[in-house]
């Protein structure tokens, strides 16, 4: 009883603060929570007339259909392998860049480098698709022209040969993201107490020793968190990278199709609501489990760096 009146009192006192959160609550409910409920579509035979409620149940048919097709294997493999390569390559490159930026003592030039590395990150994937096209287009793209001019080889139809795309997409992804990631790592390097380095210099430690014995161990928590975050999203992909950059070309689908582009194509192009929801649900569940696993792993390593 007393607790209840206490609650009422504090509700009254905090009425305005609680009301302030209302727009956000409503928005998240619509944008995030209703779609969570919508995953029951994966278990239904959806048709637009009957809607989510009225459509007949399909049991696990949508999942059976998905996993019996070749697609499930290919899109899972593509999404997974691309992400593994992205994680490793981006980590190595961006930490290297961050370590080297830290060696530049001139503030102005250091700012200049950071600003130009970040430029690829702020443009949209549509623009990236244009940039890639200007290099790879068959007739007049820069790469083909240089190939012909310097090596006398034949023009390559980049947009017709799926075998090149794993390399192209890895390069494009690194080009777009390494600058951004390196700034995150650089920020945590600046945060390191200068006294460590002063002491190390007095003890006669070389630059290399300082890097491997002080800098890297001290930024390891940030590296761990960022990597585990990336690992927990290992079945997600940047839709723009895999859809816009290959310009949605049919011939490239074997190496550019990921779960995200598959879901989109299944819904928009073939109208298969049930199966595309099933694929999205499969992705969400695996990612959710991976986040929990990753978080537990971080907690084991260092409790402070865990997400929750």
């Amino acid at each position, binding site marked *: 009883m007393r607790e209840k009146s206490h609650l009422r009192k504090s509700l009254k006192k905090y009425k305005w603060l609680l009301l302030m959160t209302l727009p956000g609550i409503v928005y998240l409910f619509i944008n995030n929570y209703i779609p969570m409920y919508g995953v029951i579509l994966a278990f239904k035979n959806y048709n637009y007339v009957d809607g989510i409620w009225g459509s007949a149940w399909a049991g696990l048919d949508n999942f059976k259909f998905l996993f019996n097709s070749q697609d499930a294997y290919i899109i899972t493999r593509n999404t997974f392998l691309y992400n593994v390569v992205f994680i490793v390559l981006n980590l190595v490159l961006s930490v290297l860049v961050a370590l080297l930026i830290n060696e530049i003592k001139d503030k102005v030039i250091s700012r200049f480098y950071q600003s130009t590395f970040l430029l690829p990150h702020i443009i949209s994937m549509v623009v990236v698709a244009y940039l890639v096209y200007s290099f790879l287009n068959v007739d007049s793209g820069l790469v083909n022209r240089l190939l012909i001019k310097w090596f006398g080889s034949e023009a390559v139809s980049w947009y017709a040969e799926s075998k090149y795309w794993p390399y192209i997409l890895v390069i494009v992804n690194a080009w777009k993201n390494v600058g951004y990631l390196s700034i995150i790592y650089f920020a945590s390097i600046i945060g390191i107490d200068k006294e460590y380095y002063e002491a190390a210099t007095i003890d006669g430690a070389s630059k290399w020793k300082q890097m491997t014995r002080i800098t890297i161990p001290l930024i390891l928590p940030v590296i761990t968190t960022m990597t585990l975050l990336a690992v927990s999203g290992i079945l997600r992909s940047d839709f723009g990278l895999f859809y816009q950059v290959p310009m949605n070309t049919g011939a490239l689908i074997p190496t550019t199709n990921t779960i995200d582009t598959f879901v989109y194509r299944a819904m928009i192009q073939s109208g298969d609501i049930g199966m595309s929801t099933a*694929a999205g649900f499969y992705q969400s569940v695996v990612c959710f489990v991976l986040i929990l696993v990753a978080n537990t792993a971080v907690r084991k390593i260092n409790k402070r760096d865990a997400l929750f």
Partner: protein
Amino acid sequence: MVRELNLKKWIGPSLIHLFFWAFTIASLIPFILVFMVSISSEDSILQNGYSLFPSHISFAAYQFLFNDFSEIAKAYGVTILSTIIGTVVSLLITALFAYPLSRPDLPFRSTLSFYIFFTMLFGGGMVPWYITYVNMFDLKNTIFAMIIPNLLLSAFNVLLMRSFFASTIPESVVESATIDGAGELRIFFKIVLPLSLPIMATIGLFNTLAYWNDWYNCMLFIDKPELYNIQYLMTKTLTNIQYLLMKSNSSAQVGDLLAKMPRETVRMALAIVGIAPLLFAYPFFQKYYISGITSGAVKG
């Protein structure tokens, strides 16, 4: 011995600068290439292909675009409108959500935190999300489709703002304002927001970029060409240059225009027109943008 040391001291830094110049060139060259193609003459492209050093400079592509600027102007209009409305509303509801969460005494604080945090862990996927906006809210072919879905509130931004409020707004200020009889809303708008301009600028910038660069919502929810935003117009034009001429209804006219159109260079000129505002604005906002990313990296 002394000379050797000097050499060593000199080689290290210059190698680093060499590495960074290579990196800088790699970051910039695609932009330069697209720009150079856009100011090349169509004939020189047909002969020599795209080149960083065009043999013939011509502004025909831009002339072509500006002769019939209405399509681009419309797309720009849609982009600017949704960017302004989206950024303002987004900033407001993010701050309104984040500020109460930063108050340690708020009832249901942990419930509210979990409510927003859970959206980072699990999602229903794109299909139920799409159906929600198309069937339940009928956003298809409206400007709201480019403002509301996904872009309005990000859990990450709320958490970033919350830790800013928690660490920079002194509790004593809030307390003394309460004693003076100021209501919570008054405190928020008159005291908290003015003290929080750095985080507002940062999140505002993140939002502006997200809205300016968005093509996904437009692709999903819009099929009326007059509602295309600039990014989506660019997407369509990359795969099919005819999209630039959509407005001309008679097919004879389209055929005529297409025949006269400097195809390759016009494409790249459109890309330049599409990114120019961003590239011009970049020197002014990069400082805030970098410090924003940096503050996101340091866990608060």
